[in-house]
């Protein structure tokens, strides 16, 4: 059974339909990149898949033992309060909220430290979130998302606004998480080149589902050329 199965899905933003008739299945271990123009509803789709918004029509079925609180989420950077007074550890630990009761247990704290280690930010543990660079903040938020899951991460433009070196580093971290730790990735991206390099599957959106399939197949389509692929 697939991890996430969207059937005849219609999603809406503030009451207006942005995407309709979406049909796709995502399997364990895939790296699915969601592409499409600004305002094509990528973020709305992701938020609907997360359960933040209700679908207007259709269904989202979780399979393979996936539960609602098994998903790690990295929101768009402009949704994050960059001047928030919190330590890196406090931010990462808050990713465990879906697993804990009222207070964090030893296991939660251990999980937070482990995910910080995976993203190589253990040395920043006691630093203040607001003093970090953009790339460091992104890694902290990724560690928080990772804390919440060992199955699937949904990332909304994780590489946007980062310099090429940081972006390449973060890309390799993401690839590591997928290959070494078997974490399925669903990523919204505007960077066409990194999308083609990193993805196993592409979901191309524009009012409706333009394309869904493997990256290899996508490269044969006309959309690929229209998007600037060679």
């Amino acid at each position, binding site marked *: 059974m697939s991890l996430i199965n969207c059937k005849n899905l219609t999603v809406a933003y*503030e009451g207006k339909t942005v995407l309709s008739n979406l049909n796709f299945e995502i399997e364990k271990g895939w790296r699915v990149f969601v592409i499409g123009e600004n305002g094509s509803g990528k973020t709305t789709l992701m*938020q609907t898949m*997360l*359960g*933040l918004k209700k679908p207007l029509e259709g269904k989202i079925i979780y399979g393979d033992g996936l539960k*609602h*609180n098994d*998903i790690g*989420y990295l*929101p768009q950077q402009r*949704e*994050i*309060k960059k001047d*928030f*007074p*919190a*330590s890196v550890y*406090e*931010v990462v630990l*808050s*990713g465990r*909220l*879906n697993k*804990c009761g*009222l*207070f*964090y247990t030893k296991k939660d704290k251990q999980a937070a430290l482990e995910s910080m280690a995976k993203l190589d930010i253990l040395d920043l543990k006691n630093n*203040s979130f*607001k*003093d970090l660079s953009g790339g460091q903040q992104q890694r902290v938020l990724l560690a*928080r*998302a990772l804390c*919440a899951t060992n199955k699937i991460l949904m990332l909304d433009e994780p590489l946007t606004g980062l310099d090429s070196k940081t972006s390449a580093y973060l890309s390799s971290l993401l690839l590591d998480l997928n290959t070494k730790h078997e974490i399925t990735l669903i990523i919204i991206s505007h960077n066409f080149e990194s999308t083609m390099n990193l993805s196993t599957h592409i979901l191309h959106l524009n009012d409706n589902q333009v394309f869904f399939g493997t990256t290899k197949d996508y490269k044969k389509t006309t959309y690929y050329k229209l998007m600037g692929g060679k």
Partner: protein
Amino acid sequence: MFDILVSMFSYSYGIRAIVVGILVALCASLLGVSLILKKYAMVGDGLSHVGFGSLAIATALNVAPLEVSLPIMIVVAFILLKISENSKIKGDSAIALISTSALAIGVVVISVTSGMNIDVYNYMFGSILAISQSDMILCIILSVIVITLFILFYNRIFAVTFDENSAKAMGVRTNYYNMLIAILTAVTIVIGMKLMGALLISGLLIFPALSSMRVFKKFKSVVISSAIISIACVFIGIYLSFAFNNLATGACIVCVNLVVFFVCWLVAFIKQKVELNKRKKQVVLENKQE
């Protein structure tokens, strides 16, 4: 100075003011951090004006002011939050609308009934004399509830304050926690209104958190330090109010908070300069070594 302290504690109203002051300071500072970071500071301000309106009406009807205000304020907190979540009417203008209306209604009711007297003045700007035995008991009960709920839901309040969408994605019922923050704020305003004055109590919500955010960079340290700052400021404010012949207590406390805010700002400013200089020296040293 010591003499004044001793005589303050020798009056039962002085002790009541100190007890209520410390508890309200604690509640307000805990909530203030979230209010500011969630950009709900105006919700607190709007609520306090509504508090004045309900106090005026309660006085006119000759019923217990705090007990009447409490349910009204909780309902208004609910409405204010719903309005600020609704994108069609801009939240801040809706709050301004409600708060000025409540203030106007309060003033009209007062003018028609008792007229502007010393009681009304006290309700607006606070007084150490105003707190009765039953007020103090109500305050103790409610503030214990506020502090307990805050501690129990601390981790969730942090998550909802930092990033609401992610918290929601993790299954946290963010609506409930937003509501919890608003209701606890309403309760805090009610219990602090007589001491601080309806027009000045939002200062108690905002100042301590802002001051400690200048200096501290972790959420937990901000929360703890703003509680300490808040209690200290309230204590000094009540002392000044007592020492200067029952000078408006709320005004004294807010003025003390203002001074502390400037000190914190200065500390942060100097700290920044020192760090900058250190970094510059380091760069120079590294360049020399090369």
